[in-house]
Every structure is written in structure tokens, then in C-alpha cells.
């Protein structure tokens, strides 16, 4: 792998030399130790940590399309760790710390911009939840506190904090370490790192079946032939249940589209990420100056990634309630991705009833921020054949034994 550096940037800039490909194509081997299905941040990070932390390098990541074509290339790139349950906070905080180091770890600039994250409360009950979250966060050393309209206004002058607003702002949960990241760079950085460590990345390789014999996985069938493997990881997010069905593992998951939109770029004016749970909307400004908007999932389950007019109407209305000054801005694009929603807004990770078939699914609308810690934990799970403590609460068996995690208060539209 050629390392990137200021010197190479300078030299390639001057000489117009081509940058080398970040990862290589390979022939499909008839067998791998581990096949990871899904070339999003979760699948690639799992492969990367398998190779670098545990020396398991005979690994393939297969994707039916191109890497990052799923939610990992479509999300609104928000990273934070101010969750509500102790399990959630510990987990997402580890991810945030890995993200802070990621550019250095991968030698790839992932542009993590820690601009702060602010969740608005428009009524007493959400203000109470913000206090609750702040206290849970502080106990685990996560920087998170409740602030009031004067400080909110100081930090985000464009917000309408007047008492006459249709949804008056009573306070907010402010989380300084949160921010946004360049999501494509995270995908490409993990792909490059995994490739350098010996992992094979196979794009345009669709899994069409999973071979199970005597309760144990033996391989996967693909549109390019069968691959034998003793371990198969399902990291296909929105498509997770289609893959799990192939292995005979029913999942408590429903797939919903989630839409987002982006405006033309303007001068920087919005410092932090703004989220309003009650208005089902959130907004941040990218380093290029565009405003990125998101909302809650579409109102019915679907595998379609078409945008809808209803979404954009609702979104524009809510954004203008928060920041009336944006009325003349133009939207450039709108798109959708698929989200694998679980009943408790927490992921499903680790072993299943089928030996060698592991899941890293149920990422809903909040899985991008979890990419690094998930990859790290899944790799450990595979290498040690034990469930790491940090993901113990997220096992599939919790739906059978009634120990749900209950992250809805922090995850729904919180991004």
C-alpha cells in the first residue's frame, strides 16, 4: 500500500501523477475462512479488524453492488454518543473515540468535524428526557449537558428561540464531541486498510443462498459461484432479513426507507448539528457549505429507495419553523436509503442459532456512527468465539427472553 502524506499530495499535485488504486480487484477464491456479506462500513470494518487485530486475513467482503452503495454512502454522517441506556452510551462512545483516531489509524482523511450536536426540546417531557440522558452520559464520562434558550441562541443565532414560535424551544441537550464525518471516506479508508492487510473485496457479487449443513454454515452461493466458508457474517442492513432467511434465521426487523436532502452551498453559518425530535427533522452544514437535512423514516415499510414529495414538503415546513431565514435556499438533491429497524432501536449483533452464521444488523437510522466499534467487536467475536462484553446486551436472544434495550428515547430521529 502506498502511504498518503503531505509530500505525496504535493508531488502528485505538481506532476499530475495518477493516484494508485486504493484497493485491488481479485479472483474469487473457492474458499475463505470468513465471508462478510455487505460492503458497507460495518462489513468493511469487521474485515479490517479481523485482519489487523487478529491476523485473520483469508477474508472476503462481498457486495451485490459497489461498496458504500447501501446506507453507508447515503447517510447524513452524524456521529455522537449521547445515548440513553448505559449499554448504548458505552458502545457508541467507544465508536466515537475510534472515529477520532480513524484518520491516523487508516492513513486516510475521514474529515471528522467535531462541531457539536444539539437536540432541541420543545416541551416539558422532552426536556425531562434530555436531563435524563445528560445524567446517564455524565456518569460514563460523556460530555453532554442541558442548555437553555440564551445559550442556544448564542451558539446558533439563526434558530428561532422566541416564545412565539409554533414549537417554542425550551432547552436542548448539547453534546460537544458529536459532529459529522465524510462517510465515503470512512468506507474507502476501511476498504483500503482491509485490502492492504490481505482482505479480498468483491463488488458486484450477490449472495443468493447460504449453505447450512447439520446446523452449521458451510458457505455461500453467489451469482459468481459458490464460496466455501466456516464463518459467514450478515452485514447487509436494509437487506438483512433477506440474507438471514437464506440461513433460516428469522429476525425481528422491518425495512423502512429513510430520506435525506441537501441544499446549494452557502457561507458557513451553522456551527453545530441541530436535531428536533418533535419536529422530526435535523440539519447540519457540511464543510463545503451545503445544508444536509434528514427526518424520520417513511411511514410504511418498503425496499424502495425513491424519494417522495410528501417528505420534502414536510421537511421544508419543519426546517423553516426552526430557521425562518432559510426560506430562499434551494434544495439540490433528495435521496433515500434503507433502514433495518428493530423494536427497541438497538442493533442485533453476534451469534445466531446457526453455527458460524453471525449477524451485525438492525442498524436502523443510526448505524453509521457505530461502524468502527461494531467492526472491532464483530472481529473479536469471530476470532475468540466469545461475545465481547460491549455487545452482550445486543444479542438476538433478547427478543426471546424479554431483555430489550429500550433505546427509542435517544435513537428515534436523533442521528
Amino acid at each position: 500500500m502506498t502511504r498518503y502524506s503531505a509530500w505525496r499530495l504535493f508531488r502528485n499535485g505538481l506532476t499530475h501523477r495518477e493516484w494508485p488504486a486504493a484497493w485491488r480487484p481479485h479472483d474469487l477464491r473457492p474458499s475463505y475462512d470468513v465471508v462478510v456479506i455487505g460492503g458497507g462500513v460495518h462489513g468493511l470494518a469487521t474485515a479490517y479488524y479481523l485482519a489487523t487485530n487478529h491476523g485473520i486475513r483469508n477474508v472476503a467482503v462481498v457486495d451485490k453492488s459497489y461498496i458504500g452503495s447501501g446506507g453507508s454512502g447515503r447517510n447524513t454522517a452524524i456521529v455522537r454518543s449521547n445515548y440513553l441506556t448505559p449499554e448504548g452510551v458505552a458502545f457508541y462512545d467507544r465508536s466515537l473515540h475510534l472515529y477520532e483516531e480513524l484518520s491516523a489509524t487508516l492513513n486516510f482523511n475521514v474529515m471528522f468535524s467535531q462541531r457539536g450536536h444539539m437536540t432541541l426540546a420543545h416541551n416539558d417531557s422532552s426536556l425531562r428526557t434530555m436531563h435524563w440522558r445528560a445524567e446517564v452520559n455524565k456518569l460514563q464520562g460523556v460530555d453532554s449537558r442541558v442548555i437553555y434558550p440564551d445559550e442556544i441562541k448564542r451558539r446558533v443565532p439563526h434558530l428561532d428561540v422566541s416564545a412565539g414560535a409554533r414549537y417554542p424551544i425550551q432547552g436542548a441537550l448539547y453534546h460537544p464531541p458529536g459532529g459529522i464525518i465524510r462517510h465515503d471516506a470512512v468506507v474507502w479508508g476501511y476498504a483500503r486498510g482491509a485490502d492492504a492487510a490481505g482482505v479480498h473485496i468483491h463488488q458486484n457479487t450477490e449472495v443468493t443462498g447460504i449453505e447450512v449443513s447439520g446446523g452449521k454454515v458451510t458457505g455461500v452461493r453467489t451469482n459468481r459461484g459458490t464460496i466455501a466458508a466456516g464463518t459467514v457474517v450478515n452485514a447487509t442492513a436494509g437487506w438483512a432479513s433477506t440474507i438471514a432467511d437464506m440461513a433460516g434465521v428469522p429476525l425481528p426487523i422491518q425495512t423502512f426507507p429513510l430520506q435525506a436532502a441537501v441544499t446549494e452551498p452557502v457561507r458557513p453559518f451553522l456551527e453545530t448539528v441541530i436535531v428536533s425530535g418533535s419536529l422530526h427533522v435535523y440539519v447540519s452544514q457540511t464543510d463545503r457549505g451545503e445544508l444536509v437535512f434528514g427526518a424520520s423514516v417513511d411511514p410504511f415499510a418498503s425496499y424502495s429507495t425513491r424519494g417522495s414529495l410528501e417528505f420534502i414538503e414536510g421537511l421544508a415546513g419543519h426546517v423553516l419553523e426552526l430557521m425562518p431565514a432559510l426560506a430562499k435556499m434551494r434544495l439540490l438533491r433528495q435521496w433515500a436509503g434503507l433502514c433495518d429497524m428493530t423494536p427497541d432501536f438497538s442493533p442485533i449483533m453476534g451469534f445466531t442459532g446457526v453455527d458460524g452464521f453471525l449477524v451485525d444488523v438492525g442498524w436502523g437510522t443510526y448505524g453509521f456512527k457505530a461502524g468502527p466499534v461494531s467492526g472491532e467487536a464483530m472481529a473479536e467475536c469471530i476470532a475468540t468465539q466469545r461475545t465481547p462484553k460491549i455487545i452482550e446486551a445486543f444479542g438476538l436472544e433478547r427478543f426471546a427472553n424479554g431483555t430489550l434495550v429500550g433505546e427509542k428515547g435517544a435513537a428515534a430521529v436523533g442521528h
Partner: protein
Amino acid sequence: MMLLRCPWCGPRNVTEFRYVGEKTSRPDPATTTPTQWRTYLYTRANVFGWTVETWYHSTGCRQHFSVERHTLSNRTRPVQENS
């Protein structure tokens, strides 16, 4: 805009309806095991393709009805008798 055909009111914009979800049948609470109950509560087929589901015409006749919908194209058709 997506049209959904209410058996009583005819085709209407989907925003008039509330999605109730995949058609499932509730086990008898008197005899069900906790496992069956939890499967009923949480596990869904989440089909990629044609699926039978329940909708509620919330801003119209306020009736529940079943419809078959393709989860990729979002095309709908009346529930086939034997499906």
C-alpha cells in the same frame, strides 16, 4: 404520490392512510407460550416482494382493510383469495 385503493372509498393518496403492518394473526392469549407471544410481537417476515398487509383509512372511512403490496415497486393489488 402513491395511490392506495380503499375497498370502500376507491383510490386515494397514500397520505390518507395509516400503515398498520404485515398481516399477522394473534395467538390465543389463554394457550400461547411466551416464545410464541414474543414471536408474534417482534418477528416479521419483512418480505422483499409481494406481501399482505393491513392499512387504516384514517382520514377517510376509518376502516381497516388488507391489501397486497410489492415492497420494492410499491405496486398494490387486492388480496388474492388463496394467498
